[in-house]
């Protein structure tokens, strides 16, 4: 399916979108590394759904708005996005920090959501479970730690990085710090209100995730009423890239089951 690339001004922020396919809306919220390209999993999902992929305010080609201070600001922003496009029955899919934004959105107002799919989301703390410090990783360590199958990392590391891409990497990293440096990658208030999520929820985790430990999955699923937890074998932090077919199948199956 062809996809469109466009900029919309929402909450005063020029925001870059990619959008393709038709069917129920599927809003994909990216993680710390942004969403510069239309990836194969987006293409596959667009065969069944109206796939909408924004770059968060402060990331990639989107503006850095003055109002962006914390993760809650992004949650309210995406409620504005849903209103702006007049969306309903949204399948909200969030990866890592995007998953955190999705939960923050859902505890505020989940009336427009059909399903919530969280892929290794940030957002809560498990006392005593030490998270790796992503801000001390070198660029190469970061890429290597994203994947279980290192051939994916080798492929990424072999690509030259031009100035424009380097600037995007730095910008994404800056905004990630802005949102999540302290407290580190969680909101102490979120856990208290996760019980308010009434949207059917799937929690996905790569079994060899080196960025956010697998142990978070079942704890998170236990905090969201009725949430289902699934893991993907031989897979790191980015199942949508590393196990794209399996990921697309699980996401689609969950959305179909919820719709029934």
């Amino acid at each position, binding site marked *: 399916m062809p996809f469109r690339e466009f900029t919309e001004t929402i909450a005063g922020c020029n925001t870059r979108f990619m959008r393709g396919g038709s069917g129920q809306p599927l809003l994909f919220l990216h993680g710390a590394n942004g969403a510069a390209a239309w990836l194969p999993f987006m293409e596959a999902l667009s065969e069944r759904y109206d796939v909408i992929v924004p770059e968060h305010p402060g990331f990639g080609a989107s503006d850095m708005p003055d109002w962006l201070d914390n993760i809650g600001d992004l949650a309210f922003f995406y409620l504005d996005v849903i209103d702006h496009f007049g969306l309903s029955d949204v399948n909200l899919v969030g990866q890592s920090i995007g998953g955190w934004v999705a939960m923050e959105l859902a505890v505020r107002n989940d009336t427009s959501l059909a399903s919530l799919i969280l892929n290794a989301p940030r957002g809560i703390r498990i006392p005593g479970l030490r998270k790796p*410090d992503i*801000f*001390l*990783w*070198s660029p190469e360590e970061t890429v290597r730690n994203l994947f279980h199958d290192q051939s994916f990392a080798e492929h990424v590391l072999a690509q030259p990085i031009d*100035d424009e891409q*380097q*600037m995007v990497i*730095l*910008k994404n*990293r*800056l*905004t*990630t*710090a*802005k949102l999540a*440096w*302290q407290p*580190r990658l969680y909101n102490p208030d979120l856990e208290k209100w996760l019980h308010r999520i009434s949207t059917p929820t799937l929690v996905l985790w790569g079994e060899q995730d080196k960025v956010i430990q697998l142990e978070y999955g079942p704890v998170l699923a236990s905090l969201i009423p009725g949430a289902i937890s699934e893991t993907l074998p031989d897979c790191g932090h980015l199942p949508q890239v590393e196990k794209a077919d399996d990921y697309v199948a699980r996401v689609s199956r969950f959305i179909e089951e919820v719709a029934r």
Partner: protein
Amino acid sequence: MKFYFMHLMPYADLDLDYDKDYNSAWITLPNSYYDPKKGHVLYNRYLDELEYADQLGFDGVCVNEHHQNAYGLMPIPAVTAGALSRRTKNVKIAVLGRALPLLNNPLVVAEEFTMLDNITGGRLIAGFVRGIGAEYHAWGVNPAESHGRFHEAHDLITRAWTETGPFHFEGKYYDFEYVNTWPRPYQQPRPPIWIPSQGSSETIDWAAEPSRKYTYLQTFTPVSMLAKYMQMYKEVAEGYGYEATEDQLGWSVPVYVAETDEIARREAKPHIENFLNKFLRMPKEMLLPPGYLSLKSMMGVMKAKSAIGGQQTIDTVMEKGMFICGSPATVREKLEQYQKEIGFGHLLTLLQFGTLPAELTRKNMEIYAKEVIPYLRESTGATVAAGA
């Protein structure tokens, strides 16, 4: 020109083989490497050295702030300055830290600085910094808020010193119902303010602005960069319609002076190289967390590819003028030439660095104080006050 003795108070007893297991002397190096019994001896030795500078006739002593590292044992500089405030009689005491963005309540700095200023009868010089990037790892403060918090904390502290309290402070990061600092500064309207920096056009523009005219202090950079930034300050001042004085420009540099060039180089070599390669060692991600520099500046750093922590030798830093080392004649000649060319009015010399032991530190201080300072006082002539 005014002469200052600066001390970083390194943990000189560090096991220098630490780098076989750890990639930095900061943040992640376990504090089991620190032996309190040795630390006790070092602290008292370093305080003795700072007090000795007073007796040797320096114009000031400078203490610093860094956290969670072996590079410098002065996380709370007010303790060092407090100890010095009663034991020294004549020197200015420059606290070059306080890293303002690290504080939940910057009024702590307003208070500790005015206490020091009152106890010493106006010998305090107030240094305001953002801290180096590693501080944001050590302290958990968000580096993306570093600039914003610095400026707001600065406004709060200077208003606390110069406005009659109580007043209400309304900021983005700090909001206080009652700002009413006791004691008020001894120096009126406020102590001189110095802004140490490794070189930043934004910082220079801010420091030189006519309502501030703060002393800009260039720390540990090649002499060509020193010249560039000092010139930049002068041009910015001209742009504001005034002429910058020497009093607004300072340079901080390690110096070692001995009987001859050869002796100086031989005695200093292992200790300056330990300073560079062991104590300053850290990966780029630790030094430059996201947001600490502007995106534009970060792009420049990424392009330069060079990271701090690459192996340096005494010769590389001497060539760049980042380390002044030699006989009294050599050191006099270099400092005189740089001062005449560049026109700084405050010279902060680091006369102990890395593992330099007590006896060599004393010898360095004595030769510098007796054979370099008097000559330069004479030759550089211009008298300057202690800052803006």
